[in-house]
């Protein structure tokens, strides 16, 4: 269903919501108010919902054209009705009953739904029984009868299962952010403990036990966890309200009155937050317990450098190695199922391995980055490098936090661009047609007529998806199989090859083709007879005329038959609309045909004419859109990681107060000092980015190898994205250093160097 205004502009929602047309009944007054004009009377009047009218500046008297399967119909707006409840984001038009039946269903006296309201004192279930008895008496069978509650439950279930997927995806991303948060907490507590070494030593000297010191750190973590979790849950609910407002601002009618907070949300949130904080603080707390009383006596100008240990290197190498092997095996796997298990295991192991080995890598990688990047900054650059190197464990952990998010970004971008590249490659190889015409809901008969009259076109190949249950000679029934009912030229346009039989023979009378896999599964050979029970139609016996090759991902396993064959078994008014039309321009007339096709469909804005370039671009845009959404969600983890960099730098600055004072005293300007801290931050960020991008590209390439089995044949590394992210990380580093650098610059020189 499509509704257009007098300029042929599609009035349907742009956010994917449906356009619905129906008849206006008394029942509708329950959910809507007529805010202007009156309800539609007669064939020339139509009423539209207020949200759509607002969005497109429609007034009473404006002309609208509805495009239905049965034909086009033009009417003037007689009224505007507003929802009393939340509008789910659909565009809705109403006619009077007779017009709706004639123009939308193509038959008078027919209804798609009947709403029944019970008399006072009659329960809904009782009414349902009555209605069922009544319609059965009339000889009709299998009507779908639902009480209000059943219908609401059904809706909730449908929306709910979609929302469950969303919820788990969201929770997955939140989990990643959590993981990154753990790094941040471990790092922060490690630094706090290191800075307090003397203090802790004093505590130990005057008689605190290890346990007490240990506990004091854990209690601090507990308090922090409680505080942070309360703040987080509160901010989350606040954010939800903000998001709902934002979404309703964008046309998704959501009222904040509908906000529901299940009691589990704050409880689980708090519990997780507190547990994770205490858990993350455990290692630093243990380290604090190990501080000897002698530490109080030592002059701990700066805490001892945490050197990366050999043990760490070994463990990290082993984990990374095993993970790498897993990835390699995944790449070699010839069963997608085994492969994905290996891939998952490999990803987890290499990630953990990199986290463990990070501090060891830090010294080497930071040196390389510095050699390339910091040379230009002279002594300031050198000091930044040394500062980044002085505590590899800290640099490693800070970089690792950033690494996690960026690794996922790199992996997905590799998979995404490989998807586009593979599909493009496949298109080049297998699609011979110049143009593709498709649109939501399929082409109506009138649109199809208008299209096929276009001059300059050699031939059109129509494609209809016809549902059917297929019974194979082995006695098995394949339910819900779809037959591709097409014009005979279609398989030529797609260059479909047969491994057995002849594809064009599938277009003979009562013939069809199946894919290789299906044929193998049911041990079919050309000449076999398949029983095909068409949805809404009769059952026919179709002869298997060809088995198509499963090579290539395009329409893999599709079963082809002639439109004429389908028409023999499916009544005309039940025949699905043409979903897609391929068009081949007459020789040398590409440009002309393109323009002509666009012109033919000018009055049908819901359909799109695409040449191969357009189509590839659309594909790219779709993948890009999906990736952007994922990047947005990963942004959360990256923000947490940035906070980690900020935190590390801020604590480092405090730790180096005296050094900074000394440097300022002997002539380091504020600007140089700030630059030094910024450069250190950039180096840390680039270190994380390098590790993350490298790791992610490895994952992505492995995933592509594995998915090659599913048609992802081409590996494409999106270098522009990768380099963009790398350069972006440098800016992230600059950004993270803003506040710490500012604070360092403001530090009082004298306080910093004053002895005691």
């Amino acid at each position, binding site marked *: 269903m499509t509704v257009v205004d007098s300029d042929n502009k599609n009035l349907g929602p742009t956010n994917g919501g449906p356009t619905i047309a129906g008849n206006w009944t008394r029942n509708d007054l329950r959910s809507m108010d007529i805010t202007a004009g009156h309800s539609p009377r007669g064939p020339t009047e139509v009423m539209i919902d207020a949200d759509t009218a607002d969005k497109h500046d429609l007034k009473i008297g404006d002309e609208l054209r509805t495009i239905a399967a049965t034909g086009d119909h033009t009417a003037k707006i007689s009224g505007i009705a507003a929802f009393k409840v939340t509008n789910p984001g659909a565009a809705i038009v109403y006619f009077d009953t007779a017009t709706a039946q004639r123009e939308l269903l193509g038959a008078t006296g027919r209804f798609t739904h009947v709403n029944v309201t019970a008399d006072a004192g009659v329960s809904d279930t009782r009414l349902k029984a009555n209605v069922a008895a009544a319609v059965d008496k009339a000889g009709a069978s299998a009507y779908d009868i639902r009480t209000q509650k059943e219908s609401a439950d059904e809706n909730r279930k449908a929306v709910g299962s979609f929302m469950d997927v969303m919820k788990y995806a969201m929770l997955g991303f939140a989990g990643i952010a959590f993981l990154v948060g753990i790094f941040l907490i471990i790092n922060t507590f490690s630094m706090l403990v290191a800075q307090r070494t003397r203090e802790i030593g004093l505590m130990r000297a005057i008689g605190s036990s290890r346990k007490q010191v240990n506990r004091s750190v854990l209690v601090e973590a507990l308090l922090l966890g409680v505080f942070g979790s309360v703040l987080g849950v509160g901010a989350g609910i606040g954010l939800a309200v903000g998001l709902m407002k934002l979404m309703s601002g964008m046309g998704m009618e959501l009222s904040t009155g509908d906000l529901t907070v299940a009691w589990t949300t704050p409880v689980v949130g708090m519990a997780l937050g507190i547990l994770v904080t205490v858990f993350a603080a455990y290692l630093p707390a243990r380290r604090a317990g190990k501080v000897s009383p002698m530490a109080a006596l030592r*002059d701990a*100008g*700066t805490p001892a450098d945490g050197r990366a240990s050999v043990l760490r290197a070994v463990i990290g190498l082993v984990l990374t190695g095993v993970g790498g092997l897993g990835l390699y095996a995944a790449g070699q796997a010839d069963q997608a199922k085994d492969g994905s298990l290996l891939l998952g295991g490999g990803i987890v192991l290499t990630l953990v391995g990199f986290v463990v080995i990070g501090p060891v890598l830090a010294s080497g990688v930071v040196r390389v980055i510095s050699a390339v990047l910091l040379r230009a900054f*002279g*002594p*300031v650059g*050198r*000091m930044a490098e*040394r*500062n980044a*190197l*002085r505590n590899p464990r800290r640099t490693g952990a800070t970089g690792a936090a950033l690494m996690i998010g960026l690794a996922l970004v790199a992996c997905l971008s590799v998979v995404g661009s490989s998807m586009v590249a593979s599909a493009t490659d496949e298109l080049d190889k297998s699609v011979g047609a110049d143009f593709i015409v498709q649109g939501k809901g399929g082409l109506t008969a009138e649109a199809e007529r208008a299209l096929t009259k276009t001059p300059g076109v050699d031939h059109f190949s129509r494609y209809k998806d016809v549902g059917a249950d297929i019974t194979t000679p082995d006695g098995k029934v394949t339910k819900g199989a779809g037959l591709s009912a097409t014009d005979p030229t279609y398989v030529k346009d797609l260059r479909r090859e047969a491994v057995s039989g002849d594809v064009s023979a599938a277009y003979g009378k009562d013939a069809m083709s199946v894919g290789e896999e299906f044929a193998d599964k049911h041990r079919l050979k050309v000449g076999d007879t398949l029983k095909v029970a068409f949805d809404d139609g009769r059952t026919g016996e179709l002869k298997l005329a060809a088995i198509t090759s499963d090579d290539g991902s395009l329409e893999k396993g599709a079963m082809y038959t002639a439109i004429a064959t389908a028409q023999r078994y499916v009544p005309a008014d039940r025949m699905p609309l043409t979903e897609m039309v391929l068009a081949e321009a007459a020789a040398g007339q590409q440009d002309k045909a393109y323009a002509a096709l666009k012109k033919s469909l000018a009055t049908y804005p819901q359909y799109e004419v695409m040449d191969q370039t357009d189509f590839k671009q659309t594909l790219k845009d779709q993948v890009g859109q999906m990736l952007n959404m994922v990047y947005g969600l990963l942004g959360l983890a990256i923000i947490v990681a940035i906070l980690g960099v900020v935190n590390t730098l801020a604590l480092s600055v405090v730790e180096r107060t*005296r*050094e900074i004072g*000394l*440097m*300022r*005293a*002997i*002539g*380091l*300007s*504020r*600007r*140089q000092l700030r630059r030094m801290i910024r450069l250190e931050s950039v180096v840390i960020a680039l270190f994380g980015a390098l590790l993350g991008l490298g790791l992610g590209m490895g994952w992505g390439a492995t995933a592509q190898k594995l998915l090659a089995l599913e048609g992802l044949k081409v590996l494409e590394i999106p270098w522009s994205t990768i380099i963009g992210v790398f350069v972006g990380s440098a800016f992230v580093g600059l950004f993270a250093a803003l506040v710490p650098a500012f604070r360092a610059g403001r530090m009082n*020189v*004298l306080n910093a*160097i004053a*002895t005691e």
Partner: protein
Amino acid sequence: MAARARQVVKAYGSGETRVVALDGIDVDIARGQFTAIMGPSGSGKSTLMHCLAGLDTVSSGQIFLDDTESTGLKDKKLTRLRRDRVGFIFQAFNLLPTLNALENITLPMDIAGRKPDRAWLDQVVETVGLAGRLKHRPTELSGGQQQRVAVARALASRPEIIFGDEPTGNLDSRAGAEVLGFLRRSVTDLGQTIVMVTHDPVAASYADRVLYLADGRIVDEMYSPTADQVLDRMKSFDARGRTS
């Protein structure tokens, strides 16, 4: 004159809680002289040095380094002044732990983007006796060696004036004597100007001139002192302080 202070007042707080650290100080530091500033804790000797060196601001009065007035300079210019014309030796924590001895010595010049004078640098390194240890990090050096690196750093850029804040305060007497010996020689042989805050009479005896501070004022001075003279003078201050 290498440095001058005119009517310098440094006060903290205001009203009832006002504490005057420097109370109208007038002092001239002659070029090529080794000056020691002494006085009991809280006398304002460190504050005076910080103000002269351009590390701290004054409440009123003027300070000149050579002919440049440092009071009233903005941070940027003041930093440059310190960088190019002043050397520092602190009591402790003189060196950056991430840089080796040589890098620490040349740091002020590196920051300024100047090339160190090679011959002079070699001479300084030779004088302070660090030739074999230039590649060592501070943590690999003894306390005395660390202070000698600090002295070398202060000397290497040939500043107009070097300020020392208890430069031997953390050293044992032998290492201290070594460092003071270098300072003395750099004044005598190289014509360096040095101002040093100390409470150690032995350290003060290396100086050409000793200034005594009490309650933010210069109360006495002494030329070419010996350790015993300094000690006697301090004892008399202490006695006076106790009777008053």
